[in-house]
């Protein structure tokens, strides 16, 4: 059976160009970039090239790019750094729909005595700018707000929010793990201090991430040790993965320049097809301001895990915000924050496309998913 992979916000296929670029750095060009001899120096050059490719995606300077092990490490580092460099400030601002990589870090600092403001969202997952403005205080050490939500794809007005923080001298971090490579980000125009990227969401392998740190922003390392990354992130460079990420960023930039309308059109075809064929279904999130690849649909009165298992039988990979799949006993914190009615929240399914998704894939899902929902609704005691 063919696998139809529509879970690219979870992880993505490594691009063949990325794999090919990485290949020589395992068995042939395996030198340590910190070494003195040419054999290491060549490798250092490859890392520098990759750094430039990543910088180009963000409109940044190469010196502002730090390679990390993952998006989570980047998030941890940004918040850690802002707190360590401004010990007098005891207040943090974030939203209630962040990824656990930010939410749980904020909770950690809260337990250390920090005050945390978690901005609420409306029914469409949008932030209230008045609430945001009120949250910014002279005591605020850092604002950490995602560029786009991983579950619904809703894009936040990072540009405006970063400017508001900057006017008040507050450090601003954005977790751009879902947004980077899907929508244009330019740090020349948006006054971001920190930005996190994860390689495996943009067709590079798992195990590589980036933290962008604006020039002249005060920084304290999270990982201490050797002098790699100019002393800002110790640990021998993960050369093959860094090289791969460079190529992945270049491919993503090409794609953004060409426009992602085609991907958005496929996503809309999927969404409209399913909503038209399946009664009592609704789209979650801000459909006007959304990543081009993400769709979050709720099917009333059925449970997400059951949907996913039946889709798996058809070779379709997607994810759900239902209680049974969230690892907790409650539906996803994002859907709850949006006050999605409970008889919809448990039956939510997220589809996330990539450049490798075809129209045939989409049509297969639109064709085969309605009977799955019908079958589960027939089993359900809730009928209306």
């Amino acid at each position, binding site marked *: 059976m063919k696998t139809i992979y529509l879970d690219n916000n979870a992880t993505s296929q490594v691009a063949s160009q990325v794999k090919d670029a990485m290949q020589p750095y395992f068995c042939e060009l395996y030198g340590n970039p910190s070494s003195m001899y040419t054999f290491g120096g060549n490798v250092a050059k490859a890392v520098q090239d990759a750094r430039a490719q990543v910088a180009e995606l963000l409109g940044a300077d190469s010196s502002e790019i730090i390679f990390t092990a993952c998006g989570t490490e980047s998030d941890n580092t940004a918040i850690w750094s802002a707190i360590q460099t401004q010990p007098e400030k005891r207040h943090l601002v974030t939203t209630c729909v962040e990824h656990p990589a930010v939410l749980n870090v904020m909770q950690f600092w809260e337990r250390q005595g920090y005050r945390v403001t978690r901005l609420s969202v409306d*029914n469409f997952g949008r932030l209230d700018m008045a609430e945001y403005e009120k949250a910014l205080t002279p005591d605020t050490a850092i604002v950490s707000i995602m560029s786009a939500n991983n579950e619904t794809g809703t894009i936040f007005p990072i540009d405006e929010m970063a400017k508001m923080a900057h006017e008040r001298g507050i450090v601003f971090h954005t977790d751009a793990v879902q947004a980077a490579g899907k929508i244009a980000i330019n740090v020349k125009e948006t006054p971001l201090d920190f930005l996190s990227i994860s390689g495996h969401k943009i067709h590079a392998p798992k195990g590589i991430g980036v933290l962008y740190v604006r020039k002249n922003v005060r920084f304290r390392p999270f990982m201490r040790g050797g002098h790699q990354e100019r002393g800002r992130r110790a640990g021998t460079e993960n050369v093959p993965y860094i090289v791969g990420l460079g190529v992945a960023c270049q491919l993503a930039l090409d794609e953004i320049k060409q426009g992602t309308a085609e991907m958005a059109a496929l996503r809309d075809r999927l969404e409209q097809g399913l909503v038209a064929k399946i009664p009592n279904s609704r789209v979650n999130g801000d459909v006007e301001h959304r990543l081009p690849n993400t769709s979050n649909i709720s099917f009333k*009165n*059925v*449970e*997400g*895990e*059951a949907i996913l*298992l*039946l889709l*798996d*039988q058809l070779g379709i990979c997607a994810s759900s915000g*239902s*209680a*049974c*799949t969230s690892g*907790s*006993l*409650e*539906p996803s914190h994002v859907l709850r924050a949006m*006050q999605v*009615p*409970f*008889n919809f929240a*448990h039956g939510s399914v997220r589809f996330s496309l990539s450049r490798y998704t075809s129209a045939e894939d989409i049509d297969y899902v639109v064709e085969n998913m309605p009977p799955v929902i019908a079958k589960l609704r*027939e*089993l*359900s*005691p*809730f009928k*209306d």
Partner: protein
Amino acid sequence: MRFTTRTSYGLRFLLRLAKEPKGRLVKLASVAQEEHISCGYLEQIVHALKPLNIFRVARGVNGGYALAVAPAAINLWDVFLRLEGELSLVACLEPGTICERDPICSTKLFWSDFEDHIRNYLGARTLQSILNFNFWRNEHMWDYTQAVHDHFLHPHNAGPMADANAVGEVGSLACGDALRLYLKISQDGKIEKASFETFGCASAIASSSVLTDMIVGMNVEEALKLTNKDIVANLGGLPREKMHCSVMGQEALEAAIRNWRGEPAMPHAQEIGKLVCKCFGVTDAQIIRTIRENNLTTLEEITDYTKAGGACGQCLDEISEILAAELAKRGEKAAVDSPKETAAKPKLTNLERMQKVMAVLASLKLGDGQEVQLVDVDGLKISVKLTSSDTKKLLQDVEQILREKVEDNLVLVEA
């Protein structure tokens, strides 16, 4: 170059039988329906397989098919031979064919070697080999047993029962799973039929399905002795965090039998106990019982089995105290000697309340631009989202209607 649908359908038929619990009969028509195969065509295929003596047939209303031997004893070459006929990749290899080119043929030996490979491949494999392939496809990711998978994908006794004389309901939409169990119980207390409707994950559906299989033929006294552990055992195990699905089955069974006996939907006040977990509506009595029946020793296990403490976590301290008291008591005979209290006023279960509220809200006659959307039902607190020029008045009006039609002490709030 392909094998015919006779073989692919025939294998699907045999696999379907192989996945049934031992000895359970399956109707040909239901296999045909589930597998989307024409019934007439399937009959022909089954007829062709009959001489292998690998399944048995029982006639009559309750009849059907079942495997007569283990899947590992069903050789695939035998099955292919029955359904495809003798293997001959090219015409000149057909038995009895004499070809004049034989002495000078440059390809015949290749073809016959190729055929041997196919014969050997199939000859060395059994129906179990195919089950093993499926094991990797289906099981690896989801950590469910084959039995859970089968009951989820092909639930037994699903759907409402028109002539049920006992119905038990547990769970709620807000909790993420709910089960309505229908029973037909004879005058002398024997469970003649059982069916279910379930909203929930795979293990919730599988627990319901296997429960209906288990209880048919039992009398109510026997059925009341069943615990969630029996449900788990019949499924070959459940992941720890899914244990509450089996508890739900046990509770629905008890609720149905109470219903048949004319007792209130909720157990006696004394059995209800004190509400501990407000998020999932779990009482101390339920927690204590689950601790005892499953020999639980940790807070985490209690959440896995009852869901209590799994949401906001505010009640975790209280649960710890209950657990500590139970652990202290363990080994000693509990000397519970409280007087039988009279039954409390029949109360609605969360599920019943929710359905009534939903029905009433759906039947509301609202003005233009007015909307009422149900957000949550938390005990007597009903949260709704209102759209109106005067939401306060709408809230009051709807609350009044709900109090009249559902329960007089409901509270309506804006989410």
